[in-house]
């Protein structure tokens, strides 16, 4: 599952992620990160069955952890189910069901924003 970890000013001072990996022994994949001197965020991918252990190890002042579920918001009124987003997204967030209706699997999203940018109907947005 994907974890959205945000850091405040206190949170960016320490090697929180490295510490949590060492402490829990759980490997994580850093998919995106934007951190500067004041604050920041990172998107981590962690195995579902080890997430709880890792989150417990990551708990620290200045660090907020949220399980990311609805990263992509899909406006079905605007969407015409063209499916252009399907091949643009290399993380396979998008697919068709049997009746050629667009399905969005937000859990795979790494927040690159490419689908939002190139949806001809402007029917997709990212929630952070």
């Amino acid at each position, binding site marked *: 599952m994907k974890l959205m970890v945000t850091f405040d000013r206190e949170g960016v001072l320490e090697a929180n992620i490295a510490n949590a990996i060492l402490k829990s022994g759980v490997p994580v994949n850093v998919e995106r990160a934007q951190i500067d001197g004041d604050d920041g965020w990172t998107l981590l991918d962690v195995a579902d069955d080890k997430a709880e252990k890792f989150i417990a190890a990551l708990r620290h002042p200045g660090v907020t952890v949220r399980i990311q579920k609805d990263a992509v918001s899909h406006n079905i009124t605007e969407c*015409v*189910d*063209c*499916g*252009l*987003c*399907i*091949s*643009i997204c*290399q993380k396979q967030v998008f697919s*068709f069901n049997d*009746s*050629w*209706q667009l399905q969005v699997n937000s859990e795979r999203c790494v927040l690159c924003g*490419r689908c939002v*940018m*190139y949806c*001809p*109907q*402007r029917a997709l947005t990212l929630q952070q």
Partner: protein
Amino acid sequence: MYKSIDDINERIRDGSVRVVTAEEMPDIVDELGVSGALREVDVVTTGTFGAMCSSGAFLNFGHSEIPIRMEKMWLNGVEAYGGIASVDCYIGATQESTTKGIEYGGAHVIEDLIAGKAVELQARGKGTDCYPRQSITNEFTLADLNQAVMLNPRNSYQCYNAATNMGGRPIKTYMGYLLPGHRNITYSGAGALSPLPNDPTFSVIGSGTPIFLGGANGTVVGEGTQHSPGAGFGTLMTTGDMKEMSPEYIRAASMTGYGVTMYVGVGIPIPLLNEEIVKHTAVRDEDIVTSIVDYGTPMRDRPVVRKVTYKELKSGSVEIDGEEIKTSPLSSYKKAREVANELKARVENGSFLMACATREINAVKKNRPMSEHGVVRRVSEMMTSTFVTITGEKNVKEAATLLLKGNTNHLPVIAAENRLIGIVTTYDISKAFARDEEDKCVSDIMTRNVITALPDEPVDLAARRLQQHNIGALVVVDPAKKVLGMLNSYALGDLVGERWHQ
């Protein structure tokens, strides 16, 4: 066995007509045979819903008190063509807003009108004896217009190329975002459900053929622009009353990095008059072949990567060079089905009748490229062949001396046999001097990723590359990377001047 249009219309009127969509037809023909299917089925409905840039509408506003001849006009900030008569205009789908760019364009104005929203008109005229007024600002809705006639010069392609990008950088096209190194493929069209693949010989579709257009019962005007059925790329010019249309079937769209376009729902009923027509409507996705072309080559004749069927494209992936590449449509198959089913319902409930075409559409002609009489200037004509180069082991100071002597800002760095390995510019040299690095080797400070041009490339392509990379010169090389010359931005400046004075 034959059927006439009148026979079929009789059945539509008495409610006994049998209509199926083009998706259902192949199985019916397999089961009943061609003559059986002809006996059983009267009408096959088709549908497509995709980006059809070449769309637009004629609008008539009626006369204002103190009349004006509207020569220049804008609808919600989108310029419409006013060179028609006093109070008419043509609004093209791809025209972009003067303030919002591609986020709002002609297609959005059309969609807003069909959705019943108010649109602001601003117009100017020079003022004449009969039309004294010089400007007007007014708000109107679709209901306020005398006529709102959609007239699309080119809709419903018989078949369209699929797109990929063999180049090294992502590109933004009317076929969507194409990742570098052919990592995705996009395609358009509903395949065997599309209208023209079901009548590729134009045996029933012609001028006057009744169609479903954007929710209205519309008409085929005749062949569309760029019509090229001889190459499998027939098109139709279509028209319909915007007042009968629905935003369900007309949707504005913005292709980022390209522009505005309009998704149009087009459905054409094919009356089954004889066995020949039945055979055509039995077409399947695997019978429709198109080309995957490289949009990374920005030339008219883009290289064909491979041939592909719509069945493969619709499967979600296609193999290129042994790799499975994801495909995605940019037209909506779900909406295409809705179009075909809605048209089927209209024929069944008697609100849509068949008609003979009044004029045939040419089924063999081929589209021609622009007949260009101007000369295409090539890089080799504009480049300078007197240039200086340096080798990588020379030091910065020697490079500086060479730049001064050669009176240039760009110094290609070469290895054996004049092969290009990098470039240093006056900027790189100044930077090195400022950092007291004049004893460093050229190869330590050079840029390795050199932006180059080929001698036989059109100069316009090279100019765009200079612009994209924000640089002053391109190194002209042969395919073996041997340096042939330099193309400087000031040479292109002369070219622009020359064009203006022609």
